[in-house]
């Protein structure tokens, strides 16, 4: 319990240890801790940025997907339209063709009818002439009679 030189010894020891800690212990530890703090801060920031990027990318992806779907729908719709159009066109063409064929057939029929009528008319004239000549049993001027018979035939 006596106060003696130990007092001075302890004071000097105190300064020695404080100086040692100040020079060799503290700066090393603090610098390491600060560096880690910065690293963590940077890491957190990067993570946040990555999160944002991810969100952005997802948004973009959804947008693109939506656009693609829209485009696909538009294409399908167009294709459908085109298909109906093609069908319509084909139908029209078929109808037109049918009409044309029918018209041609009708024309031919008429032509044949006419021809048959002509033939019939000629034959009727000849038949009438032959009939008349037989009825009269006489030589009649064939030329004068032919004119008369033709006039008759034209009236048929």
């Amino acid at each position, binding site marked *: 319990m006596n106060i003696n*030189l130990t007092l001075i010894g302890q004071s000097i020891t105190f*300064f020695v240890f*404080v100086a040692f800690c100040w020079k060799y212990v503290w700066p090393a530890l603090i610098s390491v801790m600060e560096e880690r703090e910065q690293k963590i801060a940077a890491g957190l920031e990067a993570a946040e940025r990555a999160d944002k990027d991810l969100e952005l990318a997802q948004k973009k992806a959804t947008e693109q997907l939506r656009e693609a779907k829209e485009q696909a729908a538009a294409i399908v719709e167009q294709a459908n339209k085109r298909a109906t159009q093609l069908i319509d066109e084909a139908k029209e063409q078929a109808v037109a063709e049918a009409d044309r064929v029918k018209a041609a057939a009708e024309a031919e029929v008429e032509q044949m009818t006419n021809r048959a009528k002509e033939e019939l008319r000629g034959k009727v004239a000849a038949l009438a002439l032959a009939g008349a000549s037989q009825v009269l049993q006489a030589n009649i001027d064939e030329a004068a009679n032919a004119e008369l018979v033709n006039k008759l035939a034209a009236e048929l």
Partner: protein
Amino acid sequence: MASEAQTSTSYIQHHLQNMTYGKLPAGYERVDAEGKIHVLEHDTWTLAHSSQEAADMGFMALHLDTLGWSIFLGALFCFFFARVAKKATVGKPTGVQSFVELVVSFVDNTVKDIFHHKNRMIAPMGLTIFCWVFLMNLMDLVPIDWLPLAAAKISGDDHLFFKVVPTTDPNATLGMAISVFVLMVFFSIKQKGLVGFIKELTLHPFHSGKWFVDIFLIPINFILETVSLIAKPISLGLRLFGNLYAGEMIFILIALMFSAGLFLGIFGGVLQWGWAVFHILVITLQAFVFMVLTTVYMAMAHDHGDEH
């Protein structure tokens, strides 16, 4: 009973005496174990064999145990922390490193809360004080007879004085307090200049602004401020010493029970355990208080007297 009281008293006294190495003057009469008297012919540097001899050595003496343990523990702290600091990596801290960083950041935050000036020395000093004082206090938890008995066995001297807790020696605590005081004065003068420091001592707390009044106030201020300045290191040192000395004393008193029969011995064991558990709080708290007060004093030394 008288002889038992005698041994109890000597047991306590033995535990409260430091291993003192000092100078005994020429002509000093030494009493050895058999009661014979030797008269010293020259001034002699030697180990004190009794409390009386230690007291007679006066100021020219060293407490080898106090200095030895405090230097050993301080060196342990420095070695341990320096090793960790050297190996410290920025990556994920593991085991010892995370523990050390925990302590460092705790001290750093505490100091930053109190001390707002630019001085890179204060925080490391706080760390040194906290860890060193804590380790010195921690020696109090080692059962009080173990180390002295081991030292007596190793040295072969049954009467060797050996106190293992440096902070129960007022020399140690006041020695540190004096260092703190020196730093206080140093930083005060460095920050405010010698004139500023003297002004702080003489123009506080009473100040009128008129010179003929101040003339009478200056001596009063000087006395008040000097007392408050001196009181800081003394209270700092004595607080730590008082707490640890009282704790040590109780451990010694409890230890007395071990020689008083089985029942009292077991009871003493329980008491020692209880007191040790409570003491864990005390030693940590006192180390923390020493660090905080040192930081506060340093902050006061750096503060310019702008209050008025």
